[in-house]
């Protein structure tokens, strides 16, 4: 029941929002076509504005991933994390999650295909990837688009919340699937 309601909402959310915006616009006598194209002009400018910020973040993170340090950190952390029933396969996801969404999804996909549906690591990886957003990417795009250079505590809060999310994923999965 919950599932089918959720699927219905997922499918209809976008069309419903678009219909609401357009219909209300017409009722309120907004010249929707003109206003739409006028607003859409900004799209190119905003996308181009974020390029320097994206290059800085994505290049740095690509270099980090190519350097092999993520695997190395994983090896160092593995003995500690095994106390919390965290399988070694999961550790790269924990590290990469805040840095690159596509990398986290890629590792999750590997784990799922290699370890199969009955493995605890697959479930934990699914929860960990499903509950997160790529902090560095959002930061670069959102602040880059408006030209913010001093982040103040924004990154720290994002990373701390990511850490809390990882700890929560481990605890929740431990309680639900291992006891």
């Amino acid at each position, binding site marked *: 029941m919950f599932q089918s309601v959720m699927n219905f909402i997922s499918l209809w959310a976008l069309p419903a929002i678009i219909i609401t915006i357009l219909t209300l616009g017409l009722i309120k006598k907004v010249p929707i076509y003109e206003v739409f194209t006028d607003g859409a002009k900004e*799209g190119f400018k905003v996308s181009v504005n*974020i390029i320097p910020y994206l290059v800085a973040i994505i290049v740095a993170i690509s270099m980090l991933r*190519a350097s092999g340090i993520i695997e190395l950190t994983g090896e160092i952390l593995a003995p500690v994390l095994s106390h919390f029933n965290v399988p070694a396969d999961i550790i790269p996801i924990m590290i990469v999650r805040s840095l690159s969404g596509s990398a986290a999804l890629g590792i999750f996909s590997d784990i799922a295909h290699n370890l199969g549906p009955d493995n605890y690591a697959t479930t934990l990886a699914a929860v960990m990837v499903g509950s997160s957003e790529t902090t560095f990417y959002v930061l670069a795009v959102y602040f880059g688009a408006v030209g913010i250079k001093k*982040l103040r505590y924004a990154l720290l809060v994002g990373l701390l919340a990511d850490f809390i999310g990882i700890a929560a994923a481990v605890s929740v999965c431990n309680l639900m699937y291992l006891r």
Partner: protein
Amino acid sequence: MNYIFYFLIVISIIAGALNGKLSDVVNAILSGAELSVKVAFSLIGIMAFWLGMMKIAKQSGLIEFIAKLIKPITKRLFNEIPEDSPAIGDIAMSFTANAFGLANAATPIGIKAMEELQHQNKDKNSASNAMCMFLAMSTAGFQLIPATVIAVLIGIGYKNPTSIIAPTLLVTSIAFISAIALAKIFQKYWKPQKNNGGKD
């Protein structure tokens, strides 16, 4: 950000050298730069679409209406932003798009919200409290259904793929509430500094 940028790159080069992967690290510069432009360009179309939609929503008064609707919550979270600011409506729209996993709508709308917040920001180079709060909400990635993850699980024949919705929702809620709480705590103690030479 200066230190983080320096740290990420220097650590990568040193670690790459020690691991014998220095050439991979150097190649990653090119592939990363290419990827960034690809990401930005792939955003242009969808960004234009949603910025167009959002402009209609703004002129018809819809965004103002949503802003009024959620005033009780946003008053506490964004106490420095005027209650009827269009930023509040944009923030609500962005949150909704995120919650339903509409990633390609969430990014343009989120940027729109950030622009509105920037209008009210006094120091245009430095993030305001409201901007940090909105970023915290966005990076926590509150999402009702992790559709992509479920798709992968279905692909490998996971017994009951949607069973991960409940634990995921619990975890994402914990992270989301923590992010808001942390942003609130930090804004009290981490006052904006003036002229600190571009440090963070």
